[in-house]
Structure formats: C-alpha cells, structure tokens
C-alpha cells in the first residue's frame, strides 16, 4: 500500500513543471514529456509530489493509492 504518480497521457502537454518540482522522480524526454520513475513515492518526497500534482496546468498528474497488483482485468480494491 502506498501512493504512485499517474499521468493522463492524453491531457499532458509537456509543460514540464512536474519535473522541475519533483526531479527526484520525474525527468523529461527529448520533447519535454515526463518520464516517471516506477514504484511507490518515497515518504521523503511525498510533499513535493503533491505540489507537482497541484502545479500541473492541465491537471494531467494524479496521486493514486495503490492496491495490490494492477493487472489487465483486476480492479482497485480499496
């Protein structure tokens, strides 16, 4: 159980604020679109992650609680 960052890839326009606010977990590709380090967010940067989510101009970044494994047809069981 933890929290992960999820990007709505259709909404994301590559503004890049998230990578500035959370360089520990987010880098940008050659076109300015975010690459997220896989795995749960370490508690030490959770506050920065929240700030990055709030700063996204197109609301493409979300924090979601992870259940167990999210597979093809499994659902989030809170």
């Amino acid at each position, binding site marked *: 159980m933890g929290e992960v960052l999820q990007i709505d890839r259709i909404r994301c326009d590559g503004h890049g604020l998230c990578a500035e606010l959370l360089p520990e977990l987010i880098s940008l590709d050659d*076109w300015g679109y975010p690459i997220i380090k896989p795995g749960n967010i370490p508690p030490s940067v959770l506050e920065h992650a929240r700030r990055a989510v709030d700063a996204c101009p197109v609301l493409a970044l979300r924090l979601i609680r992870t259940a167990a494994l999210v597979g093809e047809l499994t659902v989030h069981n809170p």
Partner: protein
Amino acid sequence: MELIARAAGAERLPAHLLRLGPMPALPSGALIAELEASGLLGRGGGGFPVGRKWRAVAERAAGGAVVLANGAEGEPLSFKDRSLMAARPHLVIDGALLAARAVGAGDIIFYVGAEHRTAVAALQQALAERPRDVRGRARIVTAPAGYVSGEESAAVHYVNAGDARPTATPPRPFERGVGGRPTLVQNVESLALAALIARRGHAWYQGLGHGRARGIGLLTVSGAVNRAGVHEIELGATLSDAAAAAGGLRGNVRAVLLGGYFGGWADLYEQWGLPLDAASMRARGLALGCGVVHFLPSDTCGVAATARFMTYLASQSARQCGPCVFGLSAIAGATQRLAAQSPQPGDLDRILRWSGQVTGRGACHHPDGAATLMHSALQVFADDFAAHQHRRCLTISEPARVAVA
C-alpha cells in the same frame, strides 16, 4: 477446417445449423466454466483468457452489459478476422449471442472495419436470417480505417461519440464502456471459437493442439511463401508447419515477423521449429499476437523493412499522447535515415534510447507495440543496423529481373 470455409461466399443459416446443430442452452455459469476449462485465449492480440474476461464482465454487469464483437482488423498484415466474418458470419453471431447470455448483455454491436466490405455484407445478410429478437438487439457499426480504431477503448469511444481514438484508462471498457455500461470487447475469432466450445465442450478444444499447446487458431501467412493467405492450425504447430500450410517458402528467407506490427522479428533459422502458441512464444520472448506470420525474403534489407513498418506505425498514432506522437515519429525518421544509408552520427543509439523510453507512456499500447517491434529488429538485424550506421548495407539484392523482349 472449423473457421475457414472451402466453398466461396458466406455460409447461410441452414448450412450453418446443419453442420453444427443448434446453439446449446447452457446457463451463464456453465458456459463461462466451459470456456475457462478450455483454456481459450483471446485472438485480438492481447491473448487474455476469454473465460476470465467474460466472468469479470458478468460479475459487474447486473444484466446491463453490452457485447462488442471486435472485427476492426487494423493490422495491415492480418486478414483472418475479415475472412472469418465473410465465410462463417453465423459462427461469429453465435459467439456474440452466447457472450451476451453469459455476461448479461442485451445489446450486441458488431464493430467491423468499414473497408472490410465483404465481411460487413456477410454479417448483414446473416443477421437478416436471424429471428426478430436477435435482429432487434444487434447492430453493425463500421469502424473507420486506422491501426488504432480496433483498440478496445477506441472502439467504445467510436460507438459512444464517433471518435475512434483510445481514451485514458481506467475506467476500462469492462468497467464502463458503451453507454457507460460494462462492455465485453471480444475479438471475432475468439467469439467463433467460444461458439464451437459451447457446442462441443472444453474437452473437444483441449483435445486439439500439438505438444503442450491446446486448441486451434487462425494465422495470416504472407511474404515469401507460395500461397499467402489465412490458414487454420492446431496451436503448437511449428513455424515450418505454417510455411508448409502456405505452400512452402518462396526463395531464401532469413527472418520472420510474428504477431504483426506489434509483434517482433525472429531469425528464421533459430525459430524454424518454434511452436506457434502463446505460451511457447512468450517463453522465447515472442508473441502470437493476432496470428500474423510474415516471411522476409533474404534479398530484402531488414533495416529497410523495419523502417517501412515504423513509418507506418508512427503515421497511425492517434496523435493524442506526446511520447507517441514525437517518439514514434523520431524513431521512424532515424530508422529511415539508417535504411537510406545516410544516418546522422548517433542515430542507432538514439533509436535504442527512444525505443526504451516510449513504452508505457501512451493512453493505449500503441507506443509499446512499436517499441517491441523496434527492439526485435535491433536484435535480429543487429549486424545490418550496425553496417547501416556506417553507410553500408549487408543485403545482397538479387539482380533485377529484366523482361527479355
């Protein structure tokens, strides 16, 4: 042959019933149990267990589900779905009706590529032969051309809003699909096989196949073979069996594309004995996908062939997600430069880096599939790519055949 007909034209309802008998009146639970016991895997490309998918929809449907029979065959090297619908439309309809009963769906949508005209006509004629209660809840929706139109969220999006581009998931169609209702999106070959299993039982399906593989399936065999076309095999048949079914190889062949544009290249000599079934192929880092087998002649450069495929895949991006729009087009561009033996310094390294980066970074799996193809090309044609970075091509072209007057 269960899925392909020897006679030309679509099978009519009386012939279909004479051959297979009426559909069994299995209750939902028993039907899903038969499918699960059969081990049938989806044939649209993903290879997900069909019984488990039906159960997932049934459990959340409460009678209000929708069945979307997916016959939008966007893969350029695949013809098996349109061939099946054109030859045995009633078997596909049976499968959709059984699925509707099993998952608790009223409405059935046959989603078929608009360019598959013979298949659309066959389904229209077949539906007209069915009783009024079937006709009343089934309809055909023709899908716009395009590689991603058949992706399941794109299919649902098109039916809902006339836009055949994938949507962000979750929710996935089985959670919220057509009209917001739980929707079973199932490839038409999978439905046809389900209709056969419902009639004959899981033991019949389990009794087919070679080695540890079970069941049957359709392949589209193309490229350097004598009789390109759609062939039915028992799963676990080898690559050499597939070549034989297509009349044997024509000329020298060095590589084969398996699973379609989302699949991967394989070295022919290494994989000549490869069993064609999902598990055996996965164990070797390959995928059966939608059953495409394309033999590349030895006189065709693997770099050039890959550049063509990557260019096509880049052009088929739904242009919604940055990493797909820019990443695939950059990969395709660099591969084209390499194919033309006029690369920029570092093109090969960039292709490798970009291919690693795009995976998992689209709303759908379009960039993932393209990256898989690219990675396989870099392995199978490693020497060729390296040579092209140095402006040389290793492929020895046959002399052009000049017609003698």
